[in-house]
């Protein structure tokens, strides 16, 4: 029996846990007792994170598409074909005809190597990853306001806060261990304010729940700031010394009285006043937000409003304060930090900046492009326009996670070459020409950066399944075949390079991460202890910038044909497109099929009962799901989680994006509902569960004549 200390692969909490190993098989999981985030606890996904590692569906050999099916191939053949095709397309159409998608689930090391491959080997800045779909609003919004966009404070400060304001985050279900800290703060007397159209568990714990209409966050926040200004609750010295552009901002905010906001948001004006007074009056007030405000066409505006609020009240640059975006994936913060973004290298150094570019050109001995590339959402459109001909996808499943799946799948089908590197067969992989098997978090070394900027190690517990390899090894092999020598013999060597090229990671090396629980960046030097909270003496850009924001409604309003607001999101038991969690029996059993949350009033009006099948339609497509009649959603809003490939919520969502961040509006589109009525004497068609669906996929991957593994 061995117990390997590592970090959870699911969400941005980054909990510490042990993998239990016997005979090279993982037999169990236990929480780290001393870890600062989870201290002895885990959520249900954490407790079950071992199960998918040895699942029989694991990709164990490279696969090459032949006709309609895939056949097994050697690494030599698969990588050879990939190198040849990418080179051909680069030769024929130019390097920018190739797009690269990194993975928020892979390590910093994997992602850095992929980023280097895209820029130094292919020669394009068309590299992005799923952060585009979740927190690109944060990166864009806070870059202008503060100069950097990450959670400003730390998780272990939460329990000592006096006010916690949560907007657009279902914390106890999506970041359970952070939700635990918030509950502890409340037990110690902190006041909890929640703004969310849905009555989530954290909303039920709150002292004040503002159920604003989807997409009206700017109006709500501006009104709160209006109250703070008119009632004299601002921190005048902070504004004078540490910010700029207050006057323009103040003029705009003064037009948003609580009464104006009440009309827009449907939150009572008095509640807005109460929330504003509570938040502004306490020194130790922390603001948390997540997808609820970022996934809108006004995502960047929403984030900027939060930044305005935090600066107005000086709740920043101190412990137990701050603007705290809760990053979703286990390493989405890290993937952004190491530059898997079209406009920056690692450390958010701009590709368009000659000095930054020169630094990387020197390090990599290759000329680099200074033109920012396409984002993930733009790449799909570019494929349709014929501008992008090839895609290399590492650990992502855009066929299910991107908005308007029909549009995405049509694009994938159009590609001249698609390579997918993953641990399980996915819907995206079905369109691939080459599939490369990768190793999971339990089978490789590396680091993840959690939402509080804590860089932590993951440690190899078992050998990679079959012929799968760590992602960075695969990319290095490919790079060598394409004429660029990349050879890292271990993950810590990659970290050394990251540390050299990335100021905020300058002092982060694997041996420093061996004891204790990681280091929080910025960590510039070899003995720098890491940084629990940011912007202490000044903002990253110097002065904080107030940015006046005007309310704009969502892109697709409801109308008589599509009268419901459809909002999509996550559930507690599952994780994103389900490739890992739906192969974990406890999680899959808890939520085996897609359901839609409908308010009791709407259900009664449409004559839909709990568990009835319901057809949901939008202008993009339709799916059939089971009704869950609950008071969690208000009247007029319905909620569908996006985990179920057989009833994919993203077939319905709209491809409208924020003009700055290019993040899709997953949280609002217009939908219609109707009950599916069976004819008497008939049974509804059995719904294809994930496993049924995947079995079909699995047979595709076994050559017809061969026996078993």
């Amino acid at each position, binding site marked *: *029996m*061995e*117990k390997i*200390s590592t970090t959870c692969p699911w969400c941005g909490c980054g909990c*510490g846990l*042990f993998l*239990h190993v*016997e005979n090279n098989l*993982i*037999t*169990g*999981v*236990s*929480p*780290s*007792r*001393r*870890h600062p985030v989870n*201290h*002895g*606890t*885990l*959520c*249900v996904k*954490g*407790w079950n994170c*071992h*199960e998918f590692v040895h*699942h*029989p569906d694991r990709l164990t050999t490279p696969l090459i598409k032949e006709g309609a099916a895939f056949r097994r191939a050697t690494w030599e053949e698969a990588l050879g074909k990939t190198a040849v095709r990418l080179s051909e397309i680069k030769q024929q159409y130019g390097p920018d005809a190739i797009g690269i998608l990194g993975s928020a689930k892979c390590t910093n090391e994997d992602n850095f190597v992929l980023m280097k491959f895209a820029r130094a080997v292919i020669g394009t800045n068309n590299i992005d990853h799923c952060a585009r779909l979740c927190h690109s609003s944060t990166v864009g919004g806070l870059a202008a306001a503060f100069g950097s966009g990450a959670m400003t404070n730390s998780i272990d400060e939460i329990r000592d806060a006096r006010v916690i304001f949560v907007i657009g985050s279902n914390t*106890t279900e999506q970041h*359970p*261990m952070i*939700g*635990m800290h918030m*509950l*502890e703060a409340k*037990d110690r007397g902190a006041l909890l304010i929640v703004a969310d159209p849905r009555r989530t568990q954290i909303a*039920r*714990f709150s002292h004040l729940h503002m159920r604003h209409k989807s997409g009206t966050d700017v109006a709500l926040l501006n009104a709160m700031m209006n109250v703070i200004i008119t009632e004299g609750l601002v921190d005048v010295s902070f504004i004078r010394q540490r910010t700029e552009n207050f006057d323009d901002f103040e003029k705009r905010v003064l037009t948003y009285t609580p009464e104006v906001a009440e009309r827009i948001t449907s939150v009572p004006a008095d509640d807005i006043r109460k929330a504003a007074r509570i938040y502004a009056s306490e020194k130790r007030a922390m603001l948390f937000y997540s997808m609820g405000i970022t996934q809108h066409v006004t995502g960047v505006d929403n984030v900027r409003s939060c930044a305005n609020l935090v600066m107005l009240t000086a709740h920043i640059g101190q412990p137990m304060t701050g603007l705290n975006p809760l990053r979703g994936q286990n390493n989405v913060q890290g993937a952004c930090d190491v530059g898997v973004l079209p406009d920056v290298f690692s450390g958010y150094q701009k590709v368009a900046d000659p000095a930054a570019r020169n630094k990387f050109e020197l390090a990599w001995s290759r000329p680099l492009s200074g033109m920012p590339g396409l984002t993930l959402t733009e790449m799909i459109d570019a494929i349709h326009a014929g501008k992008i001909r090839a895609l290399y996808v590492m650990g992502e499943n855009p066929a299910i996670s991107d908005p308007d799946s029909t549009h995405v799948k049509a694009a994938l089908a159009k590609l001249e070459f698609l390579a997918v590197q993953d641990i399980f067969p996915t819907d995206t992989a079905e369109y691939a020409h080459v599939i490369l098997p990768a190793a999971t978090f339990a089978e490789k070394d590396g680091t993840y950066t959690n939402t509080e900027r804590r860089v932590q190690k993951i440690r190899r517990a078992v050998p990679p399944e079959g012929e799968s390899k760590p992602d960075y090894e695969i990319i290095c092999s490919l790079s060598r075949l394409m004429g660029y020598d990349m050879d890292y013999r271990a993950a810590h060597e990659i970290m050394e390079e990251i540390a050299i090229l990335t100021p905020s990671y300058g002092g982060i090396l694997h041996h420093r991460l*061996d*004891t*204790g*629980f990681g280091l929080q960046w910025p960590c510039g030097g070899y003995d720098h202890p890491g940084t629990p909270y940011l912007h202490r003496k000044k903002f990253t850009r110097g002065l904080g910038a107030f940015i006046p924001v005007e309310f704009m409604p969502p892109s697709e309003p409801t109308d008589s044909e599509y009268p419901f607001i459809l909002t999509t999101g996550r559930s*507690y038991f599952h994780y994103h497109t389900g490739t890992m969690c739906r192969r974990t*029996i*406890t999680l899959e*059993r*808890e939520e*085996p099929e897609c359901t839609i949350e409908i308010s009791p009033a709407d259900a009664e009006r449409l004559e839909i009962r709990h*568990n009835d099948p319901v057809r949901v339609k939008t202008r993009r497509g339709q799916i059939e799901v089971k009704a869950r009649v609950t008071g969690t959603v208000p009247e007029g809003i319905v909620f569908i989680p996006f985990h179920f490939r057989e009833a994919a919520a993203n077939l319905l969502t709209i491809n409208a994006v924020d003009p700055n961040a290019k993040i899709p509006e997953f949280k609002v589109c217009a939908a219609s509902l109707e009950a599916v009525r069976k004819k008497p004497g008939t049974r509804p068609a059995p719904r294809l569960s994930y496993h049924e669906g995947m079995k079909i996929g699995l047979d595709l991957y*076994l050559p017809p004549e061969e*026996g*078993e*593994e």
Partner: protein
Amino acid sequence: MHMTQTCILNKNHLSFWLRRLKTSHELIAPTRDVSGDIVLTELRQMHETALDGPALMPSPKEFLLPQMEQLFSYSGEGIEETFNKRPRVLFGIRSCDLSAIRILDTFYLGKQKDLYYEARRSRTVVIAIACNQPDPTCFCLGLGTGPFLKNGFDLQLTDLGDRFLVEAGSETGASLLKDSPHIFTEPMPADNDDLYEARLASQSRFEKRVNLEQVRKRIQAGVVQDSFWESVAARCFECGGCVYNCPVCTCFNVIDRASSSDTGNRYRLWDTCLFKGFTRMAGGVVPAEAKINRTKRWFHHKLLHWPAQFGTFGCVGCGRCAVSCPGKIDMATVAMRIKGEDQTEDK
């Protein structure tokens, strides 16, 4: 040399003895990990064992009932069962955990013997350490499950400062002492004095005094309202931690994993009655859909059903649920609220 039931082991000789044990058994002992946590795992370097830490997670139950265990593999030819037959020593586990193992024995080795459990249990030697320093979350005192036990162990060690008092409670334990007669010496009167003092001191260190019998009576008397259980269930994060960590919880799920159309393996995995899916029936009906039903059931099972069925509480006071519960609705916390319950509930 005549067999003694009690003897002394100088702490300097502990490594020697552990190394002896390791030659014939898989030696599982509390070990300090690079991160600073102490975990129960195979001891590689004898001096690395750390006996001064808090209750380890998860409980030693995982060595008798693993979190994920292959039961058999199947193919066209038939079934091949997988029994774990490695002789094992569980060293340095606490009295509460030992009491829990005894409870698990009544469950898995009763009329209906669980062969996989038996294969492991019959080859496991349990060397417990009595608790001189209970954790703030411990409440075994009063449940008869610790901090010191009179029987049920193969060997029980009590820390007396520079030496251990070693008590043999079984043939296996006694034979282990016989194997190394030169390091196990006769106790002196001073040792008994020190033992008595250590026991007294330990008992005085408990921060929680929880009387589960009183709690059981209150529930049975109907004093505890549903509104109380609602307030408890509202704080449940449905993580399963209380069950996964509990040394007495026994539930498991059984799944088959096919590697091809006619071969595969059958596994069993830890399960919990706290989840909705646990009671889901064909047709999708979930009798315990509302969270209050499941939360309440966990407490009722341990406080009412276990005593009725097995004559003992389904709880040994180890306090792990208090460490693992994000909502702080562990056994001790809820029990103390029930004890202080009138008809009103708080929060």
